[in-house]
C-alpha cells in the first residue's frame, strides 16, 4: 500500500506493478542471503540519511530509520561478498513507501572490484546510456514492498554493484535493502 497522492510517472517503457503476489523463485538447495551484514561501499561516502549498514541489515520496512538516502546524480553501491559466489537471485528495495520509479537501475556482478573484467550485467534500464554502461533493454518498474527480483542465472562474482540515478519523485537515491541469494563457489 502506498501513502500520498498517486503521481503520473513520466518515464518510458514502464512495467506496472502486479496486482498479485510474485510467485516463488526456485534456487538450488543451500541457497541463502549471502549479502546479509556484508560490507557496502558507496560513491556517496556521506549519505544524507542513514548508513550503508542499513542496506544489508535484514530490515525491509519503508520506515524512518530503515533506509539510506544518497545524493542526486548517478550513484552506485558495491557489496563485497568476501569470496566468489554463484548467484541465483538479487532482490532490491529502493524506497517504496510512496509509489515511485527509480531511474538508470543497473545491476552487475563481477570478481573484479573495479567491474572492468568478467563483469555480468544482470539488469539495465538506463535507456540513454547516461551511466556509460550502454543502453539497457530492461523496463522501468514501480517500487513495491516485494522488492525487485532479478534472476542472476548463476552468475559468478565476489562483488555486486547496483546503480541508480534519482527517481520520479526527486533526484535522490535510496536503498532500503538488498538481498543476494547464492552459494559460495567451492
Amino acid at each position, binding site marked *: 500500500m502506498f501513502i500520498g497522492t498517486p503521481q503520473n510517472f513520466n518515464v518510458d517503457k514502464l512495467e506496472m506493478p502486479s496486482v498479485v503476489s510474485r510467485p516463488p523463485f526456485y534456487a538450488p538447495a543451500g541457497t541463502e542471503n549471502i549479502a546479509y551484514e556484508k*560490507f557496502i*561501499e558507496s560513491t556517496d*561516502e556521506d549519505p544524507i540519511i542513514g548508513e550503508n549498514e542499513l542496506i544489508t*541489515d535484514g*530490515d525491509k*520496512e519503508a*520506515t*524512518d*530509520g*530503515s533506509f539510506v538516502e544518497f545524493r542526486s546524480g548517478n550513484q552506485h553501491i558495491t557489496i*563485497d561478498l568476501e569470496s566468489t559466489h554463484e548467484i541465483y537471485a538479487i532482490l532490491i528495495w529502493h524506497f517504496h513507501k510512496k509509489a515511485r520509479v527509480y531511474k538508470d537501475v543497473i545491476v552487475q556482478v563481477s570478481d*573484479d572490484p*573495479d567491474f*572492468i*573484467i568478467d563483469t555480468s550485467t544482470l539488469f539495465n534500464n538506463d*535507456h*540513454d*546510456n*547516461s*551511466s*556509460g*554502461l*550502454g*543502453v539497457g533493454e530492461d523496463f522501468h518498474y514501480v517500487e513495491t514492498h516485494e522488492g525487485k527480483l532479478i534472476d542472476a542465472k548463476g552468475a559468478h562474482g565476489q562483488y555486486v554493484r547496483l546503480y541508480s540515478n534519482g527517481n520520479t519523485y526527486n533526484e535522490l537515491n535510496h536503498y532500503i535493502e538488498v538481498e543476494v541469494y547464492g552459494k559460495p563457489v567451492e
Partner: protein
Amino acid sequence: MKKLIINIILVSSLFISFQVSSTVIQVDRNFDGDIINETKQLLEILSVYNFGDSRAWLNDFQDLLRRIHKNPEIYPEIEDLMIEFLQSDATMEGKQYICKQIGLIGSKQSVPVLSKMLLDISAFNMALLALEPINDKEVDKALIKALSKTKGITKTGIINSLGVRKTPEAVNPLSKLIFDKDHLISSSSIAALGKIGNMQASISLGTAYQKAEIPLKWSISDAWLKSADNISSYEETYPIYAEVYKDNPPVSIKTAALNGLINTYTGESSDYLVAALKDPDPEMQEAVIPLIRNLDMKNDMEVYIKELPNLKENLRIQLVLAIAARRDPAAHDLLLSMIKSKNQDQRLSALMVFPDHAKSSDVVFLASFASKSKGRERDMARECLNSMSGDNINDAILTVAQKACPEERVELIRAIGYRNIISGIDILLISAKHTERKVRIESFKTLGKIGSPDYLPEIIELMIKSESSAERKEAEKAITSIATTKDDESTQSDEILKVIPAVKTLNAKISCINILGNLGTEKSLPVLREYLISGEYNIRVAAIKALSEWPDASPRKDLLGIVLKTKDIKQHTLAIQGYVRLTLIDNNLREDDKATALKETMELSENTNEQKIVIAGIARVQSLSALRQVIKLLDRKELQNEAEAAVIDISRKVGELHPEKTRAILNQLLNDSQNPEFKSAIEERLKWMK
C-alpha cells in the same frame, strides 16, 4: 406613450449609473501638504466610490491617515469633516470606510450622528464599527439607549458591542434579555454579560443559571465561568466553579470549571483531579491531563503517579508524558518503565522525551537498547545517547565504553562522535585495535568525525596494520576527512606522503594511494605519476583510479599516456574512463576541443564497453561537432542504441544554441533512420524546438 417615456427614463438612469460606477477615480497628486485640504479632496473622491471601482485613492488615503495619526491635535477637525461626510449623500461604501477611520480617531463628537445610524438597518454595522472602539461613556449611553429601539440583528450587534466594551451599565438591561424569545438576542446577551464579567454580571448569570434548563443552562454556565475568571476573590469564585462542576456539564465547560476549582480551592487540588481521572467520560479523563501538566511546580506528582496502574493504557502514557513535561524527577523511572514495556507506542513515546530525564546511570541501558533494536526505536535510543544532557554524561559514556560488550561499545563509540567528546579519542584509538571488526570500523568512522590532524600519524599507522578491506576503507575515509580540516590545503597530504615510501604491505599502499587521490593535492601528483609505472600491477591500477578522480584536469595527459601505452585491458579501460571525465571538466578546453579530444579517444578504444563510455562522455558535450560525431556512429550496429541516445541528448542542449542547424540535422536523420523509436524521439525533439 407613457410607458415608452418611463422606459426611456429607466434606461437613461441605468446608463448614467453605469457611467458613474465605471468612473476611473483620478487622484490629484498635487497635494500642498495641508492635511485638512487633502482630507477634503480625498473625501470628495471617496464620496462616489462603489465596490468594484478603482481603488487608486487608497494609497493616498492611507498615507494621509498616517500623517493624521502623527498629529493628534487635528483629530477634532478631521473628525468634523468625517461627520459631515457621514451626513452627506456619499455612497455607503465610502461611509463604511470613513466609519472605520472614526473608530481610530473619534470622540463623543461623532456619537450623535452614529447613534442615528444605529437605527438604520443598512448602516448599523458601520456605525458599530465606528462606535465600538471610541473610549467615551457617551458611546455606552448611546448603545444602551438604542437597545430598546432596535430588534433582531441590529439589537444583537449592539449587545455584542456592549460586551466588547465591557459596559457595566449594560448589565441590567442585558440581564433582562437572558431569556428573550429571540435565540440570537438571548445568547448574545449571555455572552456579553460573560465578557463584562463584573460582580453584578456574575450575580445575574448565577441567578439565571439556577432557573434555566438545558441547553440554555450550559450557555449561561460558560458565561458565568468567564465572569468568575474576572473576579479576584477566591471565596466568591470558588462556589461558582463548584456549582457548575457538580452539575456535570459538557466536557469543555466541565474542564473550565475544574480548572477554576483547582486554582481557587484552598485544600488539595489533587482531590478534584484524581476524581476527574476516574470520570466515566473518557473525554473528561483526557481533558484532565493538561490541567495536571500545568499545575504549579510546588504540586507533588506522587498522588497522580499512584493512579497510573488504574488508568487505561492510553491515558497512562499521556499522564506520564505530562509529568515528564514538568521535568519532574519522578518521571525518570516512569519513562524507563515505558521504554521497557512490550508496547511499541509506549517505548517510542518515552524515548522521545527521555533525553531530558536521562542520567549517567542510564548510559548502559540505552547502549544495550540501541544495540538490540531496529529502525526507529534504535534511532531514537541513539538520539537519547547523543543528546542526553544530565551531569557527567560524557564521562559515563567514556567509562562504560571501555568495558562494554562489542555491540554496546559500537553504540557508545557512535555517541562519542555525535557528542563530539574529544577526550574520547584515546579510547577510539584503542578501539580501532579491538578484536571485533564492527568495533574497529565504528572507531575509524568516529575518528573521522572528531579526530584532529595531530592524530593523523597514529591513525595512518592503524590503517596500515588493518587486515580487512572494510576497515581500510573506513580508515581511508577518516584520514581524508581529518586531513581536509587543515587550513593549508597544500599540506593536507603531507602525513601520507611521509609514510608511503616505507609501506610494505600492498593493500596498505593502495589505501595510501587512494587517500592521495581523494585529497588531490599538487604535492601528490609526482608521487602518483611514479606509481603509474610501478612494477606492481595493483599499484598501477590504484594510481590510475586516483588520478581519474582528480579535482581538476592536471593528470589528463598522464591518463592519455596510459591509454596509448598499456596493453592491459583493465588499465586501458580505467584510463579511458578517467580521461573522459577529466576532459569534460577541463576548463581550458572549449566544447569543440572536448569533442575533438573524445573523438580521438573513441579511436583509441579497444572494445564496445570503452566506446560506450566515450559516447556517454560525448553526449555531455554541448557542440554541433559532438552531434556530428555521434551521428557517424549510427551506422555501427553494436553502438547504434548508444549513439541514438547521444544524438537526442546532445540535440537537447545544442538545439538552444544553434536551433537552425540542429533542426536541419535532425530532419535529415528523420529522413534517413529506419528505427521507428529513434524517429519518434527525433519528432518529439523537433516539436520542442518549435
